[in-house]
């Protein structure tokens, strides 16, 4: 097969996180998106006036790109507010690269912000305004109950244990302890996860992502232009998307996600496989999700994910570096975490991740998940020499 023309055509040239954690009631979600956007453009050595492609998604703004464009004063010639939940921004990266390669825009800004913690400390999701007459009478707690159903079936079919789930939270905390920006940095043990408050069995509060405020932004342009900018370009080598369902009752086999397809598409475009990936950023909404994605993205066989994460194997010093920023479990989770998987992947490829930096990172994988294991987008990013 000839190489995919999109492979390496576009590169990430700027990334930033906004203020994270709890910003207080005077700050709006758009303030955080704009803060991150300005910092990511400064990182790239570009100005807001250079942006002609705008990509955003939000649980607050149904027409997210319109709100963000107005706020920033950007009048884009290419605009994309695709909403796949937390998978949106990895999908936007794919879309931005395609738009840039097609000449529809030159400098793409992907940005997101949320103040769900300051707003009341509950996960803000579109589903809170999207009634579900088939589910609401049974009072599931959205979205944790849906992930709990997947975890329960994974345990039943494949022998995964609560201790193995807890290992994912403990590994994330280990990484967060190396990240000064992380929200939760106190030590955490498997025993503490198991003893923490049960929310929807088998998932406890410590098996669950944080509820924080926060924003992030990513700037993308052609790799040709990227070579002239101030930071080392991080090329998009591969990208893929997939979704098979929206509601958990329509998922089919709850132990296999559409990451199998999004990942296969990203690998095919990149001409790479799991063995080529040096560091992974997997959307960890709940402790079951990195286990599913390690299996579905080919890092182990189906059913081996629990054993794969046990014994600190994905923690600092382990065999495979997963979620090196501390993830949604311990770093930040403003509701749609996917953009932070890109930001951390880029930082690892650039070699600027401080104490948590892995040595010799050439290729990083970012995987976004949205809805209830519904939307999937996978990106493979690499240093210039990998193109």
């Amino acid at each position, binding site marked *: 097969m000839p190489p995919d023309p999109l492979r390496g055509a576009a590169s990430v040239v700027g990334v930033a996180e906004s203020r994270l954690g709890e910003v207080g009631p005077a700050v709006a979600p758009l303030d955080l998106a704009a803060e991150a956007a300005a910092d990511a453009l400064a990182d790239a050595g570009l100005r807001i006036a250079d942006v002609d492609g705008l990509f955003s998604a939000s649980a607050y703004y149904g027409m997210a790109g319109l709100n963000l464009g107005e706020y920033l004063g950007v009048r884009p010639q290419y605009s994309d507010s695709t909403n796949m939940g937390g998978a949106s921004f990895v999908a936007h990266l794919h879309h931005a690269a395609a738009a840039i390669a097609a000449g529809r825009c030159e400098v793409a800004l992907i940005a997101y912000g949320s103040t769900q913690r300051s707003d009341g400390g509950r996960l803000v999701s579109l589903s809170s305004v999207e009634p579900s007459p*088939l*589910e609401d*009478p*049974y*009072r*599931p*707690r959205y979205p944790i*109950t849906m992930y*709990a*159903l*997947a975890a*329960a*079936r994974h345990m*039943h079919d494949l022998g995964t244990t609560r201790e193995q789930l807890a290992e994912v939270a403990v590994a994330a905390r280990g990484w967060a302890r190396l990240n000064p920006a992380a929200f939760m940095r106190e030590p955490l043990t498997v025993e503490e996860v198991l003893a923490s*408050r*049960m*929310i*929807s*069995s*088998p998932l406890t509060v410590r098996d669950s992502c944080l509820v924080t405020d926060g924003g992030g932004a990513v700037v993308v342009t052609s790799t040709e232009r990227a070579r002239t900018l101030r930071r080392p370009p991080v090329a998009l080598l591969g990208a893929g998307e997939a979704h098979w369902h929206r*509601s*958990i*009752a*329509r998922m089919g086999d*709850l132990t296999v996600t559409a990451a199998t397809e999004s990942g296969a598409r990203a690998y095919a475009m990149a001409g790479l496989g799991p063995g080529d990936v040096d560091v992974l950023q997997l959307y960890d909404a709940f402790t079951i999700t990195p286990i599913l994605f390690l299996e579905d993205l080919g890092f182990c066989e189906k059913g081996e994910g629990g054993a794969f994460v046990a014994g600190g194997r994905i923690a600092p010093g382990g065999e495979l570096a997963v979620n090196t920023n501390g993830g949604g479990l311990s770093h930040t989770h403003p509701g749609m975490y996917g953009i932070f998987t890109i930001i951390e992947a880029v930082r690892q490829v650039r070699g600027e991740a401080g104490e948590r930096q892995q040595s010799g990172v050439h290729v990083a994988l970012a995987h976004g998940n949205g809805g209830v294991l519904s939307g999937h987008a996978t990106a493979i990013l690499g240093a210039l020499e990998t193109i």
Partner: protein
Amino acid sequence: MTGPDYQRCEQCGTAIFPRRVLCPVCGERRLADATSAGRGIVYSTTAVHAREGTHNVALVDLDEGFRMMSAVAGLDPGAVRIGMVVQARADDEDRLVFHAA
């Protein structure tokens, strides 16, 4: 007959739930109305710990070939098991819930 209503595709035979205007497998628009006998098997289960108490949420595979979210009643919410054979019944909130068969 105490189960939920569903549809059966007249082209490929797929059981369709919830109601729609075409078959998601083959696109056929001729769908026959049907009512399930309400017998099924628990596909997955969770006990939801809420402020007002703990309740069960389950996914049930109906014998006719479709899945629905529901709850298994009459048991400790955490004692419901995957693979359990269950039967639908309306509860006093007029919800369709399941009991061990």
